[in-house]
Structures are given as structure tokens and as C-alpha cells.
């Protein structure tokens, strides 16, 4: 299957500190990749490089097999990579539809909003990613939604922005079991639509449940990669992670 993005031997230094050391990562179409590693392992730097906030000091970035020079956030968005920020970048007093279209409204000439079209599209998007409650529709205020549902709105917005790869930075942080399950359902629906997800998490159980492939990061290096088929329990994943990190 085609690689949406491939980071090849990427190094990123801040002053004398090497945050990423020849790290390689790729995401294929329609797969969910779990990125795990301790605090300070370089997850955040790797993600920021992937979405173009940082450009790498060494190594190359390939989009669908083509090498891209002077990588930046704009190019990442053009390539269909959307980040769902940890705080989700929502405005809670506004409706779901306003949040999905925030900054990218559908407009008539002179800046008036195509309200009906936006509402229809927003309803379609939230149904597509798996909102089922009859109490929620495009005009419901985001502030009335649960944490997991708010994550869903942010994911729906990423899809509206033509995301091919959605980067979820710790999306299940501070969420209850029930809410975490909702986020998983949203992610599975994204996968079903043949888009890809890069899932970053602290909680190995969450990452295990949702991912097809795991990438373990330690001190700026990718120390291990394995497929879901290679292991059978999250405990096994945790054991492998511990052992590789100790050896590293």
C-alpha cells in the first residue's frame, strides 16, 4: 500500500541537544499507527516535524513517494495532514457547525455564510464519523458535548479539511472509559473511509486497542516497530517496550 508520508532518517537538534536521531516513520493509507514512548522520548518533536512545525536538520521527507524540500506547516496541510490539537482548538459556546467551519467558512460573495450548506455538510460529517445521539446535531453547542464527543468534532473538522492523515495527540487524555470508547469509534470510522491516523498516547492499553502498527520511540530514536499480528496482548506490547528501552 502507498505511503502517505515517510520520514527517512530524520534528525532534529535544538542547540546541543539531539531531540530526534535518524528517526524513520511512515504511515500507509488507511492504517492506524500508534506512536508510543516515555515522556521526553521525542514523540512531540517527531509529531511537530511530521506536521511541518519543525523542519528537519538532516534526513528527508517523502509525500506519496516524492521527496519534499523545505518542509513546513503549509506543505503538510497541502499534503492532507491535519493535527487535532490536545486542547482541540474548539470554541465551546459556538455550535458544532461553526466549529467545523471555523476559519474556513463556505461563503457567498461579500462574506455572507452559506448556512444551509454548512449545516448539511456538518450533519453529514458528524454522522460519518459516528455521532449517533439524536440529541446532537450540527447546531448543538459544543459546550454541551462530552470530552470524547468534542474530540469527534475536532476529527470531523480535520476530515472537512480534506485530511488524508489525522494526527491525534493524546486524544484520550482525561477521558472516562466510555468517552475513550467513543473516540475509538470515531477513529475506526476514519479508518473505514480509507484515511490514516497517527495516534499518540501515554496509555499503552488505548494505543494497543486502536492501532494496526506500533512505533516505539526512545531518546529520539525509533527503537522498535511491530504489527498488531505480532503480539496478542497489551501486556506483551508493554513488555517489549520495556525490554527494548532497557537494551537501548
Amino acid at each position, binding site marked *: 500500500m502507498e505511503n502517505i508520508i515517510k520520514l527517512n532518517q530524520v534528525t532534529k537538534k535544538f542547540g546541543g541537544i539531539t531531540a530526534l536521531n535518524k528517526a524513520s516513520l511512515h504511515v500507509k493509507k488507511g492504517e492506524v499507527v500508534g506512536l508510543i514512548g516515555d515522556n521526553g522520548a521525542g514523540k512531540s518533536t517527531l509529531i511537530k516535524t511530521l506536521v511541518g512545525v519543525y523542519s528537519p536538520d538532516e534526513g528527508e521527507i517523502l509525500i506519496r513517494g516524492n521527496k519534499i524540500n523545505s518542509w513546513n506547516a503549509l506543505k503538510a496541510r497541502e499534503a492532507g495532514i491535519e493535527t487535532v490539537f490536545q486542547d482541540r482548538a474548539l*470554541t*465551546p459556546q459556538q455550535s458544532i457547525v*461553526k466549529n467545523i467551519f*471555523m*476559519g474556513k467558512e463556505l461563503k457567498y460573495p461579500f462574506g455572507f455564510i452559506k448556512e444551509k450548506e454548512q449545516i448539511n455538510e456538518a450533519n453529514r460529517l458528524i454522522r460519518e464519523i459516528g455521532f449517533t445521539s439524536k440529541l446532537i*446535531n450540527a447546531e*448543538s453547542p459544543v459546550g*454541551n458535548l462530552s470530552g470524547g464527543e468534542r474530540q469527534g468534532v475536532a476529527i470531523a473538522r480535520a476530515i472537512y479539511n480534506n485530511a488524508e492523515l489525522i494526527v491525534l495527540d493524546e486524544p484520550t487524555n482525561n477521558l472516562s472509559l466510555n468517552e475513550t470508547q467513543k473516540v475509538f469509534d470515531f477513529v475506526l470510522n476514519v479508518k473505514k473511509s480509507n484515511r490514516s491516523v497517527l495516534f499518540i498516547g501515554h496509555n499503552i492499553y488505548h494505543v494497543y486497542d486502536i492501532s494496526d502498527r506500533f512505533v516505539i520511540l526512545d531518546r529520539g530514536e525509533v527503537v522498535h516497530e511491530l504489527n498488531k499480528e505480532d503480539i496478542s496482548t497489551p501486556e506483551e506490547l508493554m513488555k517489549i517496550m520495556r525490554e527494548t528501552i532497557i537494551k537501548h
Partner: protein
Amino acid sequence: MSIKSFINNMFHKNGRALGSIGYFILLMAIFFIGAPEAWIRPNLHQSVFVMMPTLIFLTIPLVFLVASGEIDLSFASTYAVAAYVFALLVKNGVDPAICFVAGVLTGAAIGALVGTLIVVFRLSSLVASLGVLFLLRGVILLLTKSRSITIMEVENHWIYPLLVGKFYGFPMQIFWAAIFIIFCYYFFNKHVFGIHIQHVGDNSVSAEQMGINVNAVKIKAFMFVGIGAALGGIFTTLITYTFFPTQGFGYLLLALAAVFVGGTPYWGGLGTIVGAVFGVGVIAYMEVGIIAIGWSGEWRQFFNGLIILLALLGHRLHGERVR
């Protein structure tokens, strides 16, 4: 869409405006019961209708600004500066239509300056605009040496009947205010400017992350307040044929009261144009209603204060801020 969610959404969207309409009806009922004979006399309502348009030009742009998370007090002086520019140019023989445009542009320019000052230097909008309020008033007093300007000549120009003449007995400014309200309703609720204002006031960090230019949105909101203040000042000057150096000061607290009685919360992100119109109605009728039911004018401020507090309590019942 289920009926329950429909009602929920309706309430979320319109609850604050409905609250303010409720206050207006309640106030009218009290005054009607208190003085039915005064209430059916048309001249009482006429005097309200003379005052209301000015208050509407001042109040509604403030809804935009408050929804963007800022506040402006300097509009009460901008009002006088724009009126001064208008009156001075008319007095010097410039075509009043051009003077009108110049006055409005003056208001926009002051708004832009105040907004830029606050946004660029990250000043508190309350304190900074308080400073500008006094500063501009001082400039006006110094320039005019506290003397007023009379512009009777404007009556013979077509702009006078068009803006403040009579149409079947109704003052023209009522129609202009109505057009302004309709325009602002769509501008706030259906235009990208109003929508961005709501996002910015709700959570400026989120708005920034999604590519909205937060500073530009806020500066434009300040400009709009300046334009509204200029319109208020010029209309009043036309109606009375006179520019007073102290004009506008009396509207400072009334316009702010109308915004909040109207149901726009102070914390930003939300606002209601319809609510503000009824907020203006409450404040304007309060000004004449107290006298009409036979109480002395001293009660007016007392009741203004009471209604602000009651309105605040009432809108609190509508809902806490969601985060």
C-alpha cells in the same frame, strides 16, 4: 432532528434575546398599569422614538465588540469628535453630504486607533478606552473652547429630510435605525465577520490556531464601534441643529446598560442583536416612563440600576458560561 434537540438549540440560540424581550414587556406592563392615560398618548412614544435611534447606533456595535471579548468606553467621546468634524465642516461651507462621510470616517479612524493601541500593546480595553474617553473629550473642549456650533443651514440641504426629516409623521431616523438593526443582525449572525468575532471572543487561542487573524478581527470591531458612535453623534447634531462639546457623555452608561440588559454576556463569545434592541427599548422607556407614571426624575437612576441588576440575575438563570 428530534423535537427536544430542536428546542434545546432554539433556546441556546435565542434564550438571551427572549429574556430581554421579556423584560421589555414586563416594563411596558408596569408602566401601562401605572399610568394608562399617559401610555396611550402618542407624544410619549414619540419622545422615546427620537432618543432610540441614537442609542441603537451606539449600542449594537458594542454588542459586536463585547462579543469579541473587549469593551470600549471611548465611544462616548468619539461621538462628539465625529459630530464636531461634521459641524465644523458644515459651518465652513463644505457640502453636508461630504461632511457626513468625513464624520463617519473620523469615527472609524478613532476606533481603529483605539483598537490598534489596545491589541498591539495588549492593554486592558476597559482602562485604555477610559483614558481615551477623557483624552478625546479634553481635546474637544480645548478645540472648541467649550463653545457649541449651530448649523441651521443644513436644513436646506437634501441630507436633512433624508436622514432626520419626517415621513408620514414618523422621524426618518427611525427607518435608518431599523435598516441598521437588520444589517447588523445579518452581519453578526450570517456574515464571516460576526462569526469570527464570536470565535475570537469565545477562545482566541483556538481561533488563532484555526487561522483567524484575532488582532484584525478585534480592531475591526473597535472600528465598528467608532462608526456607530459617529452615526449617533451626527444624527443628534442634525436633529438639534447644534453641536455641543459635552454631547455623548450622557449616553456612555446608558448604551453599556442596554448591551447588558439586552442579554449579551460580558465574557465574550456570545451576543444578541435582537436582545440589544429590546435592551435599548427598556433603557429608553425607563427614561420617560418614570416621569409618565408621575414619579419624579430622581427615581430614574435608581430604577436604571435596579433593572440592570435584575437583568443580570435573570440572564444568569439562562445559563452559566460553558467552557
